[in-house]
């Protein structure tokens, strides 16, 4: 391990900047959260004169009966149900793609990631079109084939429907994390079980599952936290079904149907989230360490052996097709259709309804081009910053002997626990008060986006594990300073892991809309905000056209992503 005094001044500076930036980016949103939670009363903004320190929000949180009788149970069922379903889908798909000889793996991989590209409200509308109890296309088809009467049989406006939709939307993320885990398991472990006399099922239960368990539980915990934070689908699909989850309550306080947003109440509601998040993430960290120790032990440099599917090939393909159809193909079809045909329905539309007008209007709109430029700028810049910070933090945490590194570890993991809207509020208030001219510019978006570096830090740490310390030491022994080692040895070797993180961040950055909505100004409009505005103002063809364009633009990125995201770490 590198002691601090083996590093030269430049190295120390770079590391200090990285660590400092990380803490700063987290500290602001967190401080804002804590500050707002204790300021009231509710009709004053936290920073206004007239606001005082108060416990009223905390008290309200604990004494409101609706929270205990409706919100907590609903949230629990929603999160538990979603996690189970998303895990089943994600694990199943990851297994098929990574461990069997399913044909066309590259294509499946790209399709499975599709829901990541599409803003959630758009997915929700598409699914309502498909599974609405009265007129959903799937329901119409099923009713016609089986001769049933409506409404139903599938009712999207139910807890089951909500869980299904949330699982479909979150599956790509779980899929990515689980495939990474499955890829790192040495097949010899299962073969050794076979030669020891254990049958295939015994091997699965006694070797495969336990070895994979830490690497599988960790993403599970992450997805639990992320699901608890989701509010778009509970808003659009859950609310009509009278499902009342925690995140919606926060949203409700922030987007009141009367008066000003009640930041105090929203912040107070977020506190349990953060606490829960911290607890879960501590657990997550331990699991990750255990998973990593398994990986280092089983070594590197083995060939992946794939299970031949044989007769199971058809059902496997069917399942994969079903997921891709529901989550990717059908929503895309709905989008495309609406953008070209507007209000006309598929069965009754005529050629006259076809029109490229929506696209024409979009391309003529100055805000569109500005939004396009800004979206790319912000997504790329923030992805770059976060990847850099993640790499530096990863090095500090896994390679240095600084005691401080545990703090950094904790800080990086904390970033997942802070809801995006609170982070955005924090950023907004800070830069309103500072005399730097960042407010209202693209720069403030870049800063706001850059606080989520938990995933890249994790990926960077995993990447560093795979690089033998001696490679760094050889560079130092050859006379290179730390920066040169970083540039010539570490970064090239880490490139696969870093690229994966970068691409994920880019995609998330394109889709992000809570933060740019809070920080919106004329100059920093991004496509997701534009989409939301068009969507809210009831111009379906335009918003569908914009959504289609967003997808079309980011789709090639996914194919590139396959190469880097699927690439085995360094053992190839």
């Amino acid at each position, binding site marked *: 391990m590198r002691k601090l005094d083996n590093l030269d001044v430049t190295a120390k500076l770079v590391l200090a900047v990285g660590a400092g930036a990380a803490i700063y980016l987290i500290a602001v949103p967190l401080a804002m959260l804590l500050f707002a939670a204790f300021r009231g009363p509710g009709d004053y903004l936290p920073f206004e004169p007239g606001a005082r320190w108060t416990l009223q929000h905390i008290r309200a949180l604990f004494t409101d009966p609706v929270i205990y009788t409706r919100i907590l149970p609903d949230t629990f069922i929603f999160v538990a149900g979603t996690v189970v379903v998303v895990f089943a889908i994600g694990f199943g798909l990851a297994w098929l793609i990574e461990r069997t000889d399913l044909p066309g793996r590259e294509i499946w991989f790209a399709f499975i990631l599709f829901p990541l590209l599409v803003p959630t409200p758009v997915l929700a509308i598409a699914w309502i079109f498909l599974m609405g109890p009265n007129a959903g296309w799937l329901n119409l088809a099923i009713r016609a084939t089986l001769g049933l009467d409506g409404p139903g049989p599938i009712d999207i406006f139910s807890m089951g429907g909500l869980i299904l939709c949330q699982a479909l939307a979150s599956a790509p993320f779980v899929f990515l994390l689980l495939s990474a885990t499955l890829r790192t398991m040495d097949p*010899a472990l299962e*073969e050794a079980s076979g030669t*020891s*006399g254990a*049958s295939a099922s015994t091997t699965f239960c006694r070797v495969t599952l336990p*070895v994979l368990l830490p690497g599988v539980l960790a993403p599970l915990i992450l997805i639990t936290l992320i699901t608890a934070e989701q509010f778009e689908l509970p808003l659009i699909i859950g609310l009509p079904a009278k499902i009342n989850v925690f995140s919606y309550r926060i949203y409700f306080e922030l987007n009141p149907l009367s008066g000003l947003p009640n930041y105090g109440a929203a912040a107070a509601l977020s506190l349990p989230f953060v606490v829960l998040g911290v607890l879960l993430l501590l657990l997550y960290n331990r699991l990750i360490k255990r998973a990593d120790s398994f990986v280092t032990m*089983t070594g590197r440099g083995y060939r992946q052996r794939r299970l031949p599917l044989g007769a199971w090939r058809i059902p496997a393909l069917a399942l994969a097709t079903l997921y891709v159809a529901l989550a990717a193909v059908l929503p895309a079809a709905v989008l495309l259709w609406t953008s070209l045909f507007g209000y006309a329905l598929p069965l009754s539309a005529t050629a006259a309804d076809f029109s490229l007008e929506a696209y024409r209007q979009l391309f003529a709109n100055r805000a569109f081009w500005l939004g396009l430029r800004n979206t790319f700028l912000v997504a790329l810049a923030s992805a770059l910053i976060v990847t850099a910070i993640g790499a530096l933090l990863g090095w500090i945490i896994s390679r240095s002997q600084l005691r401080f590194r545990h703090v950094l570890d904790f800080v990086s993991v904390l970033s997942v626990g802070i809801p995006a809207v609170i982070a955005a509020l924090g950023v907004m208030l800070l830069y309103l008060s500072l005399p730097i001219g960042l407010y209202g510019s693209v720069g403030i978006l870049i800063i706001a986006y850059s606080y989520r570096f938990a995933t890249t830090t994790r990926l960077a740490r995993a990447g560093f594990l795979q690089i033998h310390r001696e490679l760094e030491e050889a560079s130092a022994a050859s006379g290179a300073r730390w920066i040169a080692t970083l540039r010539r040895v570490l970064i090239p070797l880490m490139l696969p892991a870093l690229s994966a993180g970068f691409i994920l961040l880019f995609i998330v950055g394109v889709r992000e809309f809570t933060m740019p909505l809070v920080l919106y100004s004329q100059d920093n409009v991004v496509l997701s905000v534009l989409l939301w505005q068009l969507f809210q103002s009831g111009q379906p063809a335009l918003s569908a056209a914009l959504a289609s364009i967003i997808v079309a633009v980011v789709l090639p990125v996914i194919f590139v992503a396959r190469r880097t995201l699927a690439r085995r770490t360094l053992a190839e």
Partner: protein
Amino acid sequence: MLTVKGLSKSFPTIEGAVRAVDGVAFCVAQGQCYALLGPSGCGKTTILRCVAGLERADEGSIAIGGRVVSDEDSFVPVHERSIGMVFQSYAIWPHLDVFDNVAYPLEVERPRVARAEIEKRVGDVLALVGLQTMARRPATRLSGGQQQRVALARAIVRRPSLLLLDEPLSNLDARLRDSMRRELSMLIRQIGVTALFVTHDQVEALSLADRVAVMDQGRIVQEGAPADIYQRPKSLFVARFLGAANVLAGRVEERDCQGRVRIALDGGGHRLTLVAQHRPGARVDVVLRPEDLMLSALAPADERNAISGRIVALAFQGSSVEYEVDVGGSALLRVLARPQADLSRGTPVWIGIDARRVAIFDRAEGSVAVDSV
């Protein structure tokens, strides 16, 4: 104990199907230790995996203990064969400790083995490999050498009829390798199990095995006891693979009625008189092992099989010295001898050749291109 007949397996590649194993047949008797030796890609690991049941051969049959486990019509899956296998990466399960790793084969056995019995047997086998104090250590905290012993213990705990080892020593560092080699040899004899192992290291093969099969490109090219193969290689490939070899090119000049030929070596104008089958005019390769050559500053009495030269370099190796001697040809002759004070760089010397310790191959047939050690 193990009978393999007509084994063949092909793998599809971009250029078309490659025959990794091409009609291989051999037998391993009860209690014997058998080695498949060859360079990487020669098919030895594939054969091992077929015997284990981890892969299925395209043609041929395999029988273990008289029972056919694999042929054209039938295939006994891996977990039903009575084998123990040590993997190249050891494949120690990271989520279990040493005891549980070793006990695993007994725990999955049906009908169930009693707990007390398991504990006894595991304890015995751990003692055998010298790990009795580490029974409860988590697998993630074992060194390479310790992992290897755990792998071995696990493979033998259920007293299999056949022990399979995939490059057992290649992952260890040099010093560990030597000591482990001795231990492994002792252990295998001690428990009397039949063993088949594959390796590319000829020292490993020659020292551990009772019989060695040398493989090249999917076929067995020579099989026999270690000493036999070493001293009487049947091809240049085998000669080169099994130890250091000096290869001198030459031409047969004449043959007398007693079956002796005179061979003129290329470069240097030396002549050797040896017993051989080759006819005059044939181009041949003469293989001389460094340790079979005698080095002296004085000319020998019988000059018939002596070559003169000059020492170009020497490397002290403790109990012996390796001399490099320039005899006028394109390559240097290497000689392994005891240290002698009067021999140093530049000294003119005579190299004596024992006619009984020379191998001669036709240039046309021996695998000239392939280099081994």
